[in-house]
């Protein structure tokens, strides 16, 4: 049995009114380390917001602060209209799903699901009814007497979800819930989770380091770096208009090429001179740079915006070719030693390691301030 055997059908599940979640100037220090740095962020009622960032960026700490498992050093945490800084985790009415699933290994599926109900002294018949409904909606009804060790990864994850759903919380906190699954199962569970959110309409705060997961699971994505919020926006906006060079490099697969360049506006046209050649700029981009008066600039070019073209402006040598079936990635060496990733769609190209290629850039590149890394809007 695996996750494909059943789909989530949550028609019968009643759910509590979803709550707004808010961090207001929240900081968390562990000794000298600032894990979360002055975070201000709101999750709207019923919204699915993803906290995304590399490991150690403070996203899990932020989630644990919302759950009440960590106390903020400064700032205010709200669930609904209530300030919950001093409220016990059990009284916050939020459910958490863990990367490790955190199922109780000695209890069978039924006992695992009803665990939170027992602590709340829900009467036995009501408990049985809730467990039955939840188990049925997650396709677990035939597994109720099994122990977690007898379940597959996907099934365990659904038991963990059932344990969260059964108490009808006002919000779900998910800490990398899919990271322990293999790639195929992860894709399937991602779809199930998205469907679950759609049906239940609950507020979800979801933590992941996987940008693909973030793009598919989040109505909005909040990107953290070293505990500080970099950008909060819809997935499309984060991808198309990254707020700074860090976000640009983090979102997208393969990641965006980031190059240091010198602005050249001598002969009427504008271009950025980089290692291996130059990248031409449109009039709007040229105007924006001219207005700023910056001599240097950081340019970002997505791998899919590069193509091999004899009339191109960048001269590189192919160092590595990865064939993925539906597309091909080329790692191209710049004369100065840097690597440029090119993503070629469709059938296999004839290019291979050692070939000299000229690349053309489609459209305007992303421009970032070389000092603070912030986006230069065009």
């Amino acid at each position: 049995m695996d996750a494909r055997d059943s789909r989530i059908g949550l028609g019968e599940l009643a759910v509590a009114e979803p709550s707004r979640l808010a961090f207001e100037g929240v900081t968390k220090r562990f000794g000298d380390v600032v894990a979360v740095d002055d975070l201000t962020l709101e999750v709207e009622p019923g919204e699915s917001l993803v906290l995304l960032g590399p490991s150690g960026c403070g996203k899990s700490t932020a989630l644990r602060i919302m759950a009440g498992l960590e106390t903020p050093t400064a700032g205010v945490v709200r669930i609904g209209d209530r300030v919950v800084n001093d409220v016990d985790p059990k009284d916050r009415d939020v459910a958490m799903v863990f990367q490790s699933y955190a199922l109780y290994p000695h209890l069978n599926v039924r006992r695992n699901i009803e665990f939170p109900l027992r602590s709340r002294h829900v009467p036995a018949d009501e408990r049985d009814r809730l467990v039955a409904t939840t188990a049925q909606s997650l396709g677990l009804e035939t597994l109720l007497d099994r122990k977690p060790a007898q379940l597959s990864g996907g099934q365990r994850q659904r038991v963990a979800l059932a344990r969260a759903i059964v108490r009808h919380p006002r919000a779900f906190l998910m800490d990398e819930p899919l990271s322990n699954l293999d790639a195929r199962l992860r894709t399937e569970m991602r779809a199930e989770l998205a469907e679950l959110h759609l049906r239940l309409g609950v507020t979800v705060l979801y933590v992941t380091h996987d940008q693909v997961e973030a793009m598919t699971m989040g109505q909005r994505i909040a990107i953290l770096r070293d505990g500080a919020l970099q950008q909060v926006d819809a997935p499309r906006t984060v991808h198309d208009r990254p707020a700074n060079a860090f976000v640009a490099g983090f979102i997208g697969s393969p990641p965006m090429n980031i190059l240091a360049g010198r602005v050249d506006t001598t002969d009427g046209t504008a271009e950025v001179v980089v290692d291996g050649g130059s990248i031409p700029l449109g009039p709007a981009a040229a105007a924006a740079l001219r207005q700023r008066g910056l001599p240097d600039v950081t340019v970002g070019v997505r791998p899919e915006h590069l193509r091999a073209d004899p009339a191109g402006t960048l001269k590189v040598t192919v160092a590595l070719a990865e064939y993925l079936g539906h597309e091909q990635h080329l790692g191209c060496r710049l004369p100065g030693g840097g690597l440029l990733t090119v993503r070629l769609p469709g059938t296999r190209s004839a290019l291979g390691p050692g070939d000299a290629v000229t690349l053309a850039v489609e459209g305007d590149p992303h421009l970032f301030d070389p000092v603070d890394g912030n986006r230069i809007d065009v």
Partner: protein
Amino acid sequence: MGRHWGRTGRYALLLVAAVVVGFPIYITVVNSLLTPQQIAHRPPTLFPLHPQWGAFAQAFTDAHLGLYLRNSAVVTVSITVAELVTSVLAAYAFTFVQFPFRRVLFFVCLATLMVPMEATLIPNRQTIGDFGWYNTFPALIVPFMASGVGVFLLRQAFLQLPHDLHDAATLDGYGHLRFLMRVVVPLNRPIIGAFGVYAFLTAWNQYLWPLIVTDSDSVRTVQIGLRQLQSLSIDQINVIFAGTLLAALPIFVLLLAFQKQLIRGLTAGAVKG
């Protein structure tokens, strides 16, 4: 071929070890079933053809073994239960509860393992005297109600539990005591069981301490009772053998029943020590 000889050699070695360990026990059993005259006879009798069971009854009537066994049971069961309770609670606190000086206190706890019992014998005897506990059960029980070994052993086991379980239980509304009883203890039953057996064996086999805090038969334990047996006259030597067997019987039973758990507990200790 080499593997075959290796195995043969191993079994030969085990056989020798089994004889070395088993023979004295066998002789004790044989002698308990002989009359004193038969025991004194040379060459010795190795197979009692007409076993005499009277020595076992005599151990109870002449040597008060029943009383000693009862005292040992009271003391050992009390110590085992108390040690389990205190060790589980302390190990839990050192694993899951944040409090000031946690590390320091844990090392203090460990440090008690490095003090030999003999070094504290006199001051402890003094304290018992000051409490007016001489010749009472509390004198035999109270000093052993907590154990550094237990705290250490169980803490190492509890540390293996994923911390997410504690977080999940916290969010599910379980406080420390309920998390301990519903999750930590059930999941650590093997190691807690092993430690229980270890505590029982240690308590049952105590000799020096009971000897110096008691002199009345009403509270003395079976190990001291055995010593008293030796003061019986030589014409009752079969009773000494029978008494020794009876005193060791609970340990035999326990070892057979909990063999696996004990070995697991001992190896866990070995790896960590």
